[in-house]
């Protein structure tokens, strides 16, 4: 039994099908990547899993139980935590208070139990943003704010972490440290499901990758297999024929700003 099972989920917005019969799983103790071109339906999948979006059809199961009718906050209580592609940090609170609020909420507001300051500081330390602790969350750099969202999410002790483009805004060395952190988090038993555009990061830290295109899962497997999959190259390049590779490359870098291309070419 997988920690998270997304089963034949369809999401339609009016006439547009954002997610089209998508099925995939995420396991405890592993980092699962969810990749695909812009508009492939990745964030919509996250919204369906966390309860912000009702699926038109299909089922989501968490920990073996169907959660289709479970409201957002109860899914969080069951252990689904997430970050957002468009930042949702509490801008007028300090970085530290952002995490503190997450603790407050997790422990029950009625309890009014103050979390040990050490917990908060340890979390900030762990994601590497202690030096920002006293700054207002709307004044810190984007990359830092993404790490803050991760710390805030960890405060609610989730079994499954949904990370929506967590590394954008981080520089190379920060990304490397972040990759190691993700693997640590998974090794401690959490499931990590990550939407990410940085293919170097995805290929190096993910145990399993699912590729979405036009709302459909077109490929699933270990990084090496996914990288070699013709359909994946197709989705990213627009066509599989690599006769005109140079032309494609400029196009794609302009449009997607993704580093998948060198990796794919290295394979091809």
């Amino acid at each position, binding site marked *: 039994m997988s920690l998270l099972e997304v089963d034949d989920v369809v999401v339609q917005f009016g006439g547009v099908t954002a997610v089209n019969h998508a099925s995939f799983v995420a396991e405890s103790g592993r980092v699962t990547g969810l990749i695909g071109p812009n508009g492939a339906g990745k964030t919509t999948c996250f*919204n369906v899993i*966390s*309860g*912000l*979006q*009702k699926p038109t059809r299909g089922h989501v199961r968490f920990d073996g139980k169907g959660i289709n009718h479970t*409201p*957002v*906050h*109860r*899914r*969080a*209580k069951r252990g*689904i*935590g*997430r970050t*957002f592609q*468009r*930042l*949702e*940090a*509490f*801008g*007028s*609170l*300090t970085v530290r*208070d*952002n995490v*503190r*609020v*997450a603790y*407050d*909420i*997790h422990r029950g*507001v009625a309890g*009014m139990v103050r979390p040990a*300051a050490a917990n908060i500081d340890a979390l900030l330390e762990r994601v590497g943003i202690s030096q920002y602790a*006293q*700054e*207002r969350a709307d004044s810190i750099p984007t990359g830092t704010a993404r790490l803050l*969202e991760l710390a*805030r*999410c960890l*405060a*609610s002790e989730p079994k499954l972490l949904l990370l929506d483009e967590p590394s954008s805004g981080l520089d190379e060395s920060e990304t490397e440290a972040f990759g190691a952190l993700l693997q640590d988090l998974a090794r401690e038993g959490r499931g990590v499901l990550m939407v990410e555009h940085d293919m170097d990061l995805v290929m190096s830290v993910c145990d399993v990758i699912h590729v979405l295109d036009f709302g459909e899962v077109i490929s699933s497997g270990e990084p090496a297999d996914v990288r070699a999959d013709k359909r994946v190259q197709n989705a990213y390049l627009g066509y599989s024929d690599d006769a005109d590779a140079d032309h494609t490359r400029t196009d794609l870098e302009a449009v997607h700003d993704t580093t998948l291309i060198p990796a794919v070419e290295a394979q091809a």
Partner: protein
Amino acid sequence: MSSFMSYTIFGLFSGAAYAIAASGLVLTYTTTRVFNIAHGAFGMVLSFVFWDFSVRQGLPLWLSLVLVLGVVAPLIGWFLQRFVVRGMGEGPVSVSLVVTVGLLVFCIGLATYVWPPEARSVPPFMPTSGIQLGDTYVTAHQIITILSSVVVAVLLYLLLTRTRIGTAMRASVDNPELLKLFGGRPDRVAALSWAIGISLAALSGILLVSVVGLDYYALTLLVVNAYAAAMLGRLKSLPLTFLGAMALGLLTSYSAGYLPPDGWLNDLRNVIAPLFLFLVIVAMPQAQLRVGQVKGIVSAPLPSLGKALGWGAALLIFTALLTGNLSTANLLLVGTAATYAMVMLSLVLLTGYGGHVSLAQFTFAGVGALAYAKLDEPNLYGLLVSALIAAGVGALVALPVLRLTGLYLALSTLAFAVLMDKLVFQADFAFGFNGTLQARRLSILGTSITSTGGYVLVMTVFLVLMSLFLLFLRRGVLGRVLIAMRDSPAACGTLGLDMRWFRVALFGLSAGMAGLAGGLFAGLRGTIGANDFQFFQSLPLLLLAVVFGVTSVTGATLGGIGLMLLPVLQSNYPSLAGLMLVIIGFGAVLLARDPNGLANLMFKIGRFLEARFAPQLLAKLPVLPGRGSILDEVDEDPLDASFDHNQEVPAHVAP
């Protein structure tokens, strides 16, 4: 049978008028996301303009109609969109609510100022004609009204489906940004909708005025019927809105005809519209949490604990000195100001910290006062029970709409306030129609406080305690969670916060605070009645709270004094009474975007003065008795150390 026919005709007539108003409301809301609470108020003002043109200046009827509907109303609509509400749809809903409530009060003030109360009437169109339909005589005015609604419906349909700008209007409902990218001009679309919307409000007002009469409040409140109809169409569907308006018109007319003339069912006929509104809102489907942060939120200033205590003590000493030298009449005024300040404190919690707008805060105070008078337990226990009853009522109002978001919550408080005003407060088991109740003064721990001066001092003590309680909440878990909820509801949900119950608790707590103020007020006055807690009073209360600063305790205190002075000034300068409402409305429109209000300005001046003069002053006067040492406070206070880094620490904050 003939009476049934005539009730039906009258129902269709009023339904048609509501439909015209409601479709204007829907049009402006869908295209700009600003719900115009003042929709009816504009209809009222424009009906006065119509009277002025046609009756006072004697212009031909058709010319006055063309001028009002074709020139004045569209100009007002254009102006409003261009200079008042533009860009407000993307901001927090509390801002646009406060601004349009400001416009409402502005309109009422303007009408009272320009056309002071006197007997006026607008004759119906073609008063001598009509047709006989079986045994029922249908006036030409009724026929014209029903036909107008049909014409409006057809024209709106054609506009929205057959014209370029109409298509752009529908596009801008979905996504104004996208419309811009495709070369459309959302601003022009919005301006046109507002021009049409205000015209429709005017038409509806003019059609109704011969029945309702030229009254500042009656016409303004008729908009509740339009709200109710528009809600049935979920503020989107024009056909459903028309249907809702007709149903409401018929329901009102039949209930006027067939409800028994005595008992509580009789009172029901006055509240069909708010009841309808309330029920429709309750039946609305669950709102989904939206991702995407609300911009433009300013966090409330927070004084250090020591400073708050110091200023609280200063206020008490000041009141104590004052009460010794004032006449009883003036003492009553000071007590009234304290009451208003306490009710405004309840708004600081709800609106300033929580971001929710209540249009019924004074009604909750009324509930507290009623409970206090009825319980006849003039002691702390009775006061507490009164506050608890008010809190329970507040929670009950929020409960059915806990699934919904800000706008619907605010509108349900409005429906509730009108219901209480007309149905409950005037009922025999409450104050009675135009009746009053006696309330005894509070006694604390067996000591009865008989002197007015002493009682006012006790009220000030309550005010200070309430302020400190609020500041305490603001510093703790509740304060942080409230800010988090305003900054990102979606994140709060995904962290596991059940915001629905939280909101109900917040509403209850706020209503309880207002109820406590109401109980104290009842004791102060000795005699209270339904007139003390009319629905309309909650509006200037909200506006003054925003103008003076709804995010701070200081703002509430100043606002309380301001609201107390308002009727005093109005009765001293009756010719300017309307103008004062105009100023309040205008101030709210100007200041709504910065809920920190005038109080924040004072804090800034205070900080400047402190930075400029405090060092020299402190050097000369090393000890300032009663206030503690101003400069050292922030570092000394252990509570502060962990909280204040992100907050502005105003230099001079009075509780």
